[in-house]
């Protein structure tokens, strides 16, 4: 039986919830409340010391990193397939996975955190202190508040990401060309938040988001509320320290 620790239908957790629905896989749901930083509590740190969701458990093995979980699910449960039949398409999928993890998600977290403007409370700070060094450093910086230049760099990176998505959609209806799959599932939950944060999206990107949101499996995964408009951002990974 698959067990999924997740933060509800948002961000990286939403991608894995969608993939499970697309594959028609039953699972034990273990939701955590990211608004109260439950992922930094002792109980969850015993599951993942980095204090990050989602974590997928199967056969006593715990898997982290949402994009790698998506690849794992597709390799282990190949029907219906969620990756391309061609090596080129699979390259594009991997490229998007890396781009979401190292560019889109961390910049979105910084930008959304700065827009919220709320300082974390005492319990949240106590949770940060329990994290491993790198994760703790990220949250400490968030707690101190990001410098304007950092927020601006995050905004510029997101504008660039929107451009790259639009460019890719000019080559085909989905991010990895002809077929809907892992690349779309990995990118969708993050980009779906951008209009709400005041970013202008080109018509092709709005259309792509709409086509994903309209899928029966996506509606099923996101539940009655759909993607929440306001979520507590989760930091990381750190942006490149050396280019």
């Amino acid at each position: 039986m698959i067990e999924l620790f997740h933060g509800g239908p948002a961000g990286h957790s939403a991608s894995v919830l969608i993939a499970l629905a697309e594959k028609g896989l039953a699972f034990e749901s273990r939701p955590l409340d990211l608004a109260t930083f439950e992922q930094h509590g002792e109980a969850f740190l015993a599951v993942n010391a980095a204090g990050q969701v989602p974590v997928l458990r199967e056969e006593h093995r715990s898997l982290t990193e949402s994009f790698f979980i998506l690849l794992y699910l597709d390799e282990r449960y190949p029907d219906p397939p969620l990756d391309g039949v061609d090596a080129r398409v699979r390259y594009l999928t991997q490229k998007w996975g890396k781009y979401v993890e190292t560019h889109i998600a961390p910049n979105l977290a910084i930008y959304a955190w700065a827009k919220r403007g709320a300082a974390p409370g005492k319990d949240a700070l106590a949770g940060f202190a329990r994290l491993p060094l790198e994760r703790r450093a990220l949250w400490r910086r968030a707690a101190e508040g990001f410098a304007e230049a950092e927020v601006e760099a995050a905004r510029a990176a997101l504008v660039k990401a929107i451009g790259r998505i639009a460019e890719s959609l000019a080559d085909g209806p989905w991010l990895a060309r002809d077929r809907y799959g892992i690349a779309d599932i990995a990118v969708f939950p993050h980009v779906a938040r951008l209009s709400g944060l005041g970013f202008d999206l080109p018509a092709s990107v709005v259309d792509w988001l709409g086509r994903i949101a309209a899928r029966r499996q996506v509606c099923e995964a996101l539940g009655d509320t759909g993607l929440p408009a306001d979520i507590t951002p989760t930091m990381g990974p750190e942006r490149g320290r050396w280019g």
Partner: protein
Amino acid sequence: MLDVYTWEPNANSGKPLLCLKEKQVSFNYHYIDMGVREHFSPEYLAINPDGTIPAVVHDGFVMTESTPIMEYIDDRFDGPRLRPEDPYWRWRMRQVMRYMDNIVAPSLAMLASNRLAAPRFRGADPEELKRELDKIPLPERRAAWEKLMFDKTDAVDLEESARRVAQAIGRFEALLTETPWLAGHDYSLADINVMATFHSLPASAPDQVSEAATPRLWDWLRRCHARPGLQQAFALGKGLIGARVAETRATLGVAEGAAA
């Protein structure tokens, strides 16, 4: 037609070279001299507008992300399989590569370039250096080169990088107690990815890596360096990498000669 545009068989630049030689796939090697920043030249930017190396072009399909390129090479070409069949071990292989790509390799790059490249910019005309910086397309790459050219890397950052490299040595030693290779019972992309950056660890971290201190990592280095594919790939180097690797093989007691 398979064209590889890259620098030495080292770090990201080396990944496609090491994979292709392992699988015995023939390709055209276009040497991009990073030392004179040829990857920011208009000719190279026409191939990869981001100005990062490597770029691999297969029948007109341009690829610029080094780790996805490794998976593509294994996916697309004949030769020994370099990824585990089992989805769980594939996940493990990808985690090792991610740790290397995001945390360890950039730390070693920061340390090595500050030691080797930064001194070359001392005394250079700052206006000239600024013009060079303006040619770099990606802001994150520009920031790293600016630190390098103007000797502005914080001591705290260098220290943190050293800590991360040391931690990685410990983690890999631990992984190798579990299985003979970094992602299971067979040599995989994880081993190649780590070798691309850690090939000369006995020389770059002699205090931390030795037969006594890290016996499993030492043995792994020996087994990797004895592979003909790797020896051939490292022999492609035109500059310091080839010599450095030959020296490492001697330290490890690995015989030369597998290189074609």
